[in-house]
């Protein structure tokens, strides 16, 4: 891809319109990625030395662990996804970003919300529902910011010059609609003064979690991959039929998953949810076919670049999806439920699948949007291998720990302390993976920050030059 190609007159215009918005979303996302991974390491330390934070309420495991997860999901994944959606909508529609100032405001609201939410969790102000821990003020900020960005994206979509809809459009548009729906439902029914009673709370919690972690991330991640893979390989996506089928089955079966097989609820709920989980195999197969057919034989001479990120992200998506199916299948879930296997799947979904696709998209879009090359291209390449090794070292030991813990938990003759001791051993290995991931994330953040600073310096120089320069003739006349 030649960075300087300027075939369309609007090309530079589109990029310029996106610059501030995308930077506001992605710059913050990079910070939260580093913060989230660092908090994750702090949380892991408790399993190395349980009494480490015995006298510090801020850093107790029960607070740091959800804070780390929320920093990754709400801090990194979501704003990165939103930034990439704006970019793809502008590019596919061949139109500059509509309302370019709105996403900037929204990005700041969003990051403020994440900050308030995380601080709240650490001081004990949490709702107590998994993935909904943020305080009410933070949730309102996130919701408002999302709506603003969704409106911008919809306006950009409406103003598109290329009228044809691409598969990426379906996935990303559904994601823009689905998040406000699930987030408002969950917050209104769980986090108000008169929430729903009893076990309905966790049911709605599971529905929300599943639809955010599995469905929403899948819609944005797969949608982005369906844009990036054909774009970078310069081959068409194969094919619309499979794409339509995978999209509809993913939203239909995916949305019904999430109620664990052993949940203390009437049998019909986990049974239906488990069935939907089994049927998820269908969209997974369809998506795998699309990716293989699109990528097979494509020649992209750049190892460790955006293409590699996207490909490995999709491989992790299939693995994470299969892990999710196994958690839904009653036969395996009775072993895997309540073990480290489930956190392993979530981390693979966040850091293996979604983050990889986002890294790919960001390394692809950043030089174009900023109209400047990456300051440290070698770091980007290194980041790929660090991210790959980090995810493998983080997730594989956790998954093995989960399987072993589950099998041993079913042997009532083994003392619970011994069951745990075996799992903790693997858990400690996985901390190495977290350290490597953090190192990679630092390189990623460095690239974005140096780029931002260079851009600001350039802006300053232009401004200075404009002040120093003699007034143009036309203005003198006026």
């Amino acid at each position, binding site marked *: 891809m030649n960075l300087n190609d300027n075939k369309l007159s609007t090309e530079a215009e589109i990029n310029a319109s996106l610059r501030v918005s995308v930077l506001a979303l992605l710059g913050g996302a990079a910070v939260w990625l580093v913060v989230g991974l660092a908090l994750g390491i702090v949380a892991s330390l408790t399993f190395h030395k*349980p009494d480490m934070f015995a006298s510090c309420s801020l850093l107790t495991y*029960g607070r740091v662990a959800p804070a780390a997860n929320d920093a990754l999901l709400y801090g990194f994944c979501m704003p990165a996804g939103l930034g990439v959606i704006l970019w793809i909508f502008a590019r596919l529609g061949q139109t500059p970003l509509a309302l370019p100032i709105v996403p900037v405001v929204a990005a700041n609201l969003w990051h403020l919300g994440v900050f308030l939410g995380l601080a709240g969790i650490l001081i*004990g102000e949490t709702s107590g529902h998994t993935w909904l821990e943020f305080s009410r003020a933070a949730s309102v900020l996130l919701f408002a910011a999302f709506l603003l960005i969704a409106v911008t994206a919809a306006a950009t979509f409406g103003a598109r010059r290329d009228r044809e809809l691409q598969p990426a459009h379906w996935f990303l*548009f559904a994601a823009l609609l689905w998040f406000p729906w699930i987030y408002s439902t969950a917050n209104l029914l769980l986090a108000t003064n008169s929430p729903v*009673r009893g076990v309905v709370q966790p049911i709605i919690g599971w529905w929300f979690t599943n639809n955010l972690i599995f469905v929403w991330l899948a819609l944005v991640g797969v949608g982005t991959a369906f844009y990036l893979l054909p774009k970078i390989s310069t081959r068409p996506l194969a094919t619309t039929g499979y794409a339509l089928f995978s999209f509809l089955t993913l939203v239909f079966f995916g949305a019904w998953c999430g109620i664990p097989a052993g949940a203390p609820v009437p049998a019909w709920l986990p049974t239906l949810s488990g069935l939907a989980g089994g049927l998820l195999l269908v969209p997974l197969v369809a998506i795998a076919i699309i990716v293989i057919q699109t990528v097979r034989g494509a020649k992209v001479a750049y190892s460790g670049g955006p293409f590699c990120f996207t490909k490995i992200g999709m491989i992790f998506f299939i693995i994470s999806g299969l892990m999710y199916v196994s958690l839904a299948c009653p036969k395996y879930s009775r072993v895997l439920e309540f073990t480290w296997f489930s956190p392993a799947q979530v981390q693979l979904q966040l850091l293996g699948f979604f983050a990889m696709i986002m890294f790919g998209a960001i390394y692809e879009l950043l030089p174009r949007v900023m109209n400047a090359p990456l300051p440290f291209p070698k770091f980007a390449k290194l980041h790929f291998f660090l991210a790959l090794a980090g995810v493998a070292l983080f997730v594989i030991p956790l998954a093995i720990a989960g399987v072993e813990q589950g099998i041993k938990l079913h042997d009532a003759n083994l003392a619970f302390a011994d069951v745990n001791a075996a799992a903790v051993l693997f858990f400690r290995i996985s901390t190495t993976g977290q350290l490597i991931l953090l190192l990679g994330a630092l390189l990623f953040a460095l690239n974005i920050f140096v780029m931002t600073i260079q851009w600001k310096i350039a802006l300053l120089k232009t401004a200075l030059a404009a002040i120093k320069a003699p007034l143009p003739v036309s203005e003198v006349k006026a």
Partner: protein
Amino acid sequence: MKTGIGVFIAAAFALGSSWCGLVLAPSLQLGSAKLATVLNSTDTYPVQRNGDATLGLQIYRANGCAACHTEQVRQEGVSCEVSLTSLGKNKPEDFKPFAQSLLTLPEWLDHTKELSAAFKDWTGILPQVVLAKTDKESADKMADLLKAAGCKSETRIYAFGSDLSRGWGNRRSVAADFLYDNPVQLGSLRAGPDLANIGVRMADANVQLQHLYAPGAVAKNSVMPAFRYLFEVRKQVDGATSPEALTLPKEFAPAAGYEVVPKAEAKQLVAYLLSLRANVPLYEAPFTPVISAKP
């Protein structure tokens, strides 16, 4: 563009269906649940928590205890056990041949081992388990046979599963257990043991407090972080230990002249933990409660 609208409607239907099925329907069905009745009694369940325990749930929430502890017990199945409680007018000598005669009947072939084991070394002590780990149909058949022979029997129904074998409860968790909880803290990971019945298992408030302050003092090899910030280490007044001070093993005890006393939060948290007792039989998770007949 036409396909676009079609796809949009189909997707909205797919997503909306899950909202109807997993949000609306459960809210209508379970959201207005009333108190349950304990089987074979007039007691209602669950019992409303007292003030300290209600506040304790908020301490449990704020410190993220649910990150490592579940409050839900699973059950793999339900079984019956038939015990002979009285021989009626039969003599023990008469009964043995009767039991032997059952062995030849085709419907008891699956249970031959248990039946012969039950009466091989039987010395006439009652109650004696005749048939264990069996379904309700076989249990009823056996009870009828014993009744026809002039004996009395009792059928015990019990839930089984690895969680229950660990002593974490005597039945699975059901919706009724969580009626008064807000927020409901089910948890999803067992880095620590299940707490659905911790109030039964560890009923001593002092042990609970010790465990929170120094997990190693109560449970060996515990990986639970200590919650020292819920306690206060203060100087003893006039060299005397106050009644609420914790008694701790030497390696966890504070310096001489000092004592560890729980803050209000710790007491509330323990009150909440002691209130976790999901062990009564309910219609949807039935079992026969047993108590040991110790002399």
